[in-house]
């Protein structure tokens, strides 16, 4: 299970990083989302992965670490809010600058402009 978990987290963060480095705002936002998924998975596993652990300590010796769960909940909430904000900002930038390049570059979009 550990290796599957690690590979999933790794693939998610690699895809996220690749997309963040793209030149247009939409892939960047998707990349940020993927990266935050990877981070959430990572946080979730930081207390160590246990199977069959009790959620609430009731005398059992194996129990799930409750702290990462609380942290991941906080991180998910913050991540959602930030994604929403980034989407709105990207739309605003598209409107203000007339294209969706992250640095507002002009000229590279002429073909796209002509098509419309």
């Amino acid at each position, binding site marked *: 299970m550990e290796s599957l978990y690690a590979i999933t987290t790794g693939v998610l963060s690699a895809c996220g990083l690749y997309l963040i480095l793209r030149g247009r705002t939409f892939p960047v936002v998707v990349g*940020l989302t993927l990266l*935050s998924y990877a*981070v959430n998975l990572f*946080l979730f596993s*930081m207390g*160590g992965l246990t199977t069959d652990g009790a959620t609430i300590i009731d005398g059992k010796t194996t129990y799930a670490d409750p702290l990462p769960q609380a942290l991941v909940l*906080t991180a998910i909430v913050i991540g959602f809010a930030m994604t929403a904000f980034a989407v709105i*900002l*990207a739309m605003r930038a598209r409107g203000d600058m007339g294209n969706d390049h*992250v640095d507002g570059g002009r000229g590279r979009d002429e073909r796209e402009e002509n098509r419309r």
Partner: protein
Amino acid sequence: MSPHLIVLPVVLPLIAGVLLLRTRHGSPRTKRWLGVGATLALVVVSALLVDRASSGEIAYYALGDWQPPFGIVLVLDRLSALMVLLTSVLALGCVIFACGGDDEQGSNFHGLFQLQLMGINGAFLTGDLFNLFVFFEVLLLASYALLLHGGGKSRTQAAVHYVVLNLAGSSLFLIAVGTLYGATGTLNMADMAARIAELPAERSGLVTAGALLLLVVFGLKAAILPLYFWLPRAYAAAPAPVAALFAIMTKVGIYAILRVYSLVFGEQAGSLAALQQPWVWWLSLATLAVATLGVLAARDLRLLVAYLVLVSVGTLLAGLGMGSVEATGSLLYYLVHSTLVTGGLFLLAEMIGLQRGKAGTRIVRGRPLTQGGALSMLFMAGAVAVAGLPPLSGAIGKALLLDAASAEQQPWLWPLLLASGLGAIIALSRAGSTLFWRSQKGESDGEPLPRQQWVGVTLLLATSPLLVALAGPVSDYTRAAAEQLANPDAMVRTLLSDAGDAS
């Protein structure tokens, strides 16, 4: 004194912020009084906190009475009290300035401003690594919205970079926090310090990775060399009172480096002690050099001030990189000075721009200023202070830092720091002579500036002579704060009554 005083710098702006968001359609007058009143109250509270911390006492406030290391704590020591006071004084100047008209260019200025103060104060007071992340997010969220206040193309563009970069930074922060929790099993910084002392050897690699990742995150906030490219554009594009408040945001990163590495990775950490030192030292010198070039190359007054912020960041980080008690004490003195003066200069640049019509803050010839005399005097005072010329506070701060450098650090620090001062003098005198002396053609038709703007700028720039007059007590205090930081045992003992037998 009430035990709840420590939580007030977080709760007070929160309440004020919520009230202001509720009255967002109310008259500007109500909002302004509420905003200024709340900030004034914050100044009083933080002055009381400094008074309390100056005895050397380390106090903590356990939220919900959950005792550390399990509960969330706010910790008050000399350093955090000083930073909270600095924030509130800077904020007072900014909020008074904003009442001159900047706050009505968009919606919700005062509410967001208070929420940002809440995040900054929380980041200075918290004693918990995850809570540091939460307060970072609070202050960043408010800053994203404030950066866009008033709208405009350049602001949107600067905000896209700023937001994306900081979101990526937040992800790194979480990974670092997760790694450190996985290796040590705690998030309370004092508890982590106690546990790192007894860390099994096979986990030290994991902790090193987490610690250096944290350095990247704090370096992004503080704008250290390879991570500073967002800063000049964002600060130059932000509305003036926001840019002035942002002067403290880079200091949040510096504070976080200072706090985390002195407490968690202090002497007790054995082989992991001071693992950030070489990185911070060399990168800070490079930051200083590049920022000086930026100052010389800037063609816009606001961009110039943004690079001056970067110079101050490089100087402060060099103080951090020296890693001695004297250096930390003098860097704290310089930090107070540079935050207030660069904040004041941002406000001043806006006022100059308002009176020049089309030319704005660009350093080109334009129409003469309506109130050029008074503005040029203020500019002169700010320039002397920020460049580090006597008799104002920059000279004392730089002299303290130069004096604190050890023999093998001097050949690197002295030329760079003095050259950066020279660069600032050249750039500022060039800017000043173009703005005030060579702009004589045509009629001046700028409106007289509102009184609030004068009050805000004067308040911030007047702290520089005040810091000179009180240089003795202030530097004694910062020196004592540095000594307190160098002995993290006292804090560990205060927070964990059973320190040492962490299991």
